[in-house]
């Protein structure tokens, strides 16, 4: 019996005899997430975080104080009954825990892995507050992932109501689209998902790398949709193959959900961005993930730069994903260049931690001035400026200010720009009457309804830059609104 197992047994005994006091719970060590060896994983694409065992999951769950005011639920965008599912795990009732999560979230295996719990459910956790460290709060995401992975049944298909005869079109098969498709299908509508790429899953397959979110997990969720009777049509670009007006007027769709995700990648607008070896993170990750460029020449046909020295620009999760992907593709040196300090980085702490473990060099308070190239147009280096932090700006973060005359050059052959996306113009350009913001994002009301009757939208195309869970949260809201709209529609 391991020490952990002994501890669990002692705690269970104690619980039976007189119950656990908060002090007993505080005394349980925060359970670390086992990970793949940090050297070994640099040369494979397998998942880094390996997941809790039953014992570590139950120990972690027992740290929960079962607060009456449930601050964790307030922090969850889809209001999962966190206290209850964590309690069920502590009791060893994993199936029950899963059912509790699934009442609010369809994709626990995905959210348990990619949600930024430290700024959502885990941020207000009383246990974390006690230790004055959000990382010491109850590891809600790890527990969510544990029960999702524990569920090997895979055949729990949600019940579908009798056919209503109404048709719903879902544009985009990312996290938002998947939720809308499931929720509207459950209500008995005839649902078709249109995906522009040749594989469904959206950002979950083209963007988030295998080492953070195995594609088999996403495929399982897509398969569930198919089993529910949702029709998934790939290689169908709404706006081009068919417009929204045509879908509604000619093809008989009664409602449409627009969840087309990230649009035009942003570049810095500096000299040298057209050089060969400068990528948007979208392109770099799509080549590596969706197109499997890591197997180029060994089965896969999509090439990617064979980089030795890479600079990634940005400090978000996408920047971390790009940098860590570059490591796995064989880069010897990867710099992460960010103009503010590490404290301001929007990336998850866990991702920053993993990136550092994998040898990525963090160049904070620096920003490129121009990208340098050779005669053939290939990147050879990057000239950077050093920055310092000034007064807080509109975002509340301290404004980075360039230090005059601080120019220096780093030697790189690849630059990956991960500074966000604008709105995809395709739907806006081809849908008359659809109200857009000045940035081109779709304007919606609190029910995710657009300016057009029967047309709803959510995720990045509405929020600019959203997370998986925010997209899913909007999907849930939109699906409820669509179901209500269709109930009233003749």
């Amino acid at each position, binding site marked *: 019996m391991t020490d952990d197992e002994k501890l669990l047994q002692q705690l269970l005994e104690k619980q039976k005899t007189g119950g656990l006091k908060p002090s007993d719970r505080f005394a349980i060590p925060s359970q670390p997430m086992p990970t793949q060896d940090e050297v070994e994983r640099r040369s494979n694409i397998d998942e880094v975080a390996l997941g809790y065992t039953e014992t570590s999951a139950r120990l972690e769950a027992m740290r929960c104080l079962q607060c009456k005011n449930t601050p964790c639920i307030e922090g969850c965008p889809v209001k999962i009954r966190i206290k209850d599912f964590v309690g069920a795990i502590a009791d060893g009732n994993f199936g029950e825990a899963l059912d509790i999560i699934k009442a609010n979230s369809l994709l626990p295996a995905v959210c348990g892995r990619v949600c930024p719990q430290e700024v959502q459910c885990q941020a207000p956790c009383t246990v974390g507050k006690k230790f004055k460290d959000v990382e010491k709060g109850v590891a809600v995401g790890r527990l969510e992932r544990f029960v999702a992975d524990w569920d090997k049944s895979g055949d729990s298909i949600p019940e579908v109501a009798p056919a209503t005869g109404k048709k719903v079109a879902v544009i985009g098969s990312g996290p938002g689209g998947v939720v809308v498709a499931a929720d509207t299908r459950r209500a008995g509508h005839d649902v078709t998902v249109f995906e522009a790429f040749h594989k469904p899953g959206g950002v979950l397959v083209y963007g988030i790398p295998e080492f953070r979110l195995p594609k088999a997990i996403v495929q399982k969720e897509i398969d569930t949709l198919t089993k529910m009777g949702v029709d998934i049509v790939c290689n169908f*670009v709404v706006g081009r*193959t068919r417009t929204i007006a045509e879908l509604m007027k000619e093809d008989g769709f009664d409602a449409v959900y627009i969840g087309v995700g990230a649009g035009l990648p942003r570049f810095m607008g500096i000299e040298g961005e057209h050089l060969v070896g400068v990528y948007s993170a979208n392109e770099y990750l*799509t080549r590596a993930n969706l*197109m499997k460029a890591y197997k180029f*020449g060994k089965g896969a*046909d999509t090439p990617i730069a064979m980089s030795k020295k890479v600079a990634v620009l940005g400090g978000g999760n996408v920047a971390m994903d790009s940098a860590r992907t570059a490591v796995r593709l064989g880069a010897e040196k990867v710099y992460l260049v960010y103009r503010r300090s590490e404290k301001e980085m929007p990336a998850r702490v866990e991702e920053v931690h993993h990136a550092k473990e994998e040898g990525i060099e963090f160049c904070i308070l620096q920003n490129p001035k121009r990208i340098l190239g050779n005669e053939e147009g290939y990147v050879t280096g990057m000239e950077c400026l050093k920055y310092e932090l000034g007064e807080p700006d509109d975002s509340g973060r301290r404004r980075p200010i360039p230090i005059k005359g601080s120019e220096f050059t780093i030697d790189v052959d690849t630059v990956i720009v991960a500074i966000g996306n604008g709105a995809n113009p395709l739907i806006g350009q081809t849908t008359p009457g659809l109200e857009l913001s000045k940035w081109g994002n779709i304007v919606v009301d609190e029910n995710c309804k657009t300016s057009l009757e029967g047309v709803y939208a959510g995720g990045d195309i509405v929020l600019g830059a959203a997370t998986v869970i925010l997209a899913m949260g909007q999907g849930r809201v939109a699906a409820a609104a669509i179901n209500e709209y269709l109930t009233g529609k003749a």
Partner: protein
Amino acid sequence: MNVSHKILSKSQLSENVFTVEVEAPLVARARKAGQFVIVGISDDYGERIPLTIAGVDTDKGTIRLIWQRVGKTTAEMADLKIGESIDYIAGPLGNPTHIEKFGTVVCVGGGIGNAPLLPIATAMKEAGNKIIGILGARTKELIILEDEFAAISDELIVVTDDGSHGRKALVTEPLQEICSRDPKPDLAVAIGPAIMMKFCCRTTKQLDVPTQVSLNTIMVDGTGMCGGCRVEVGGKTKFVCVDGPEFDGHQVNFDLMMKRLGAYRTQEQKASAQYAEHRCKIGLTDTIRKKQ
């Protein structure tokens, strides 16, 4: 819903240029002149390549694709037989050509560029324009679609670098002559290798003839997400897939574009060599001959 993309007919237009008529009912229904598709021949490990739509049969729900065998994927496509299928065809993509009655439109095609040019020239003709065609290639064998252009052109000039067919000249020579006529043409459309488009634009700019070019850059998604297709037009970054593929040729930075087109040359050569070796081992040879 699974859309079938069965190849109904196939022929070889020149040593490395192939054409198929392939089922793509959704694309055929929506497509307009100037648009393209993204094609993939293997779902799991294949590459996504942008190809022009050279023609359409809306009744049959088919489109015509023309491509040049340059890399592994285009070589594999060239080995597909009638009755076999292409895994996926997404589109139509890009903005359609702005078609109106301009007056006289001079249409310059170089090599494989004749393929995207043909539907545009045809649509221009149908809109009531007078069409002057200029088709150029290195040598006679590489001039494609000459009959089709002859059928829609009011005047057709063919040039080859070696003089093996038509005039011995580069396309810029007759283009300069035509643009020097009085009255000069109202619009030029030039589609071909980047270097050709660059020099055509230089010629027409000097003679003040507005010029449209259609760019075929490297792409992944083709819907405005990856940014791989970006070009500099009028000093601004534009995305060929959503802002193009057609641009004012006088504003395009062709030198930058040409460099970007060569981004994967080393890898492509490696992949092509591997595939050639593979073909050799399985005894595959070119069995389809011109217009069989």
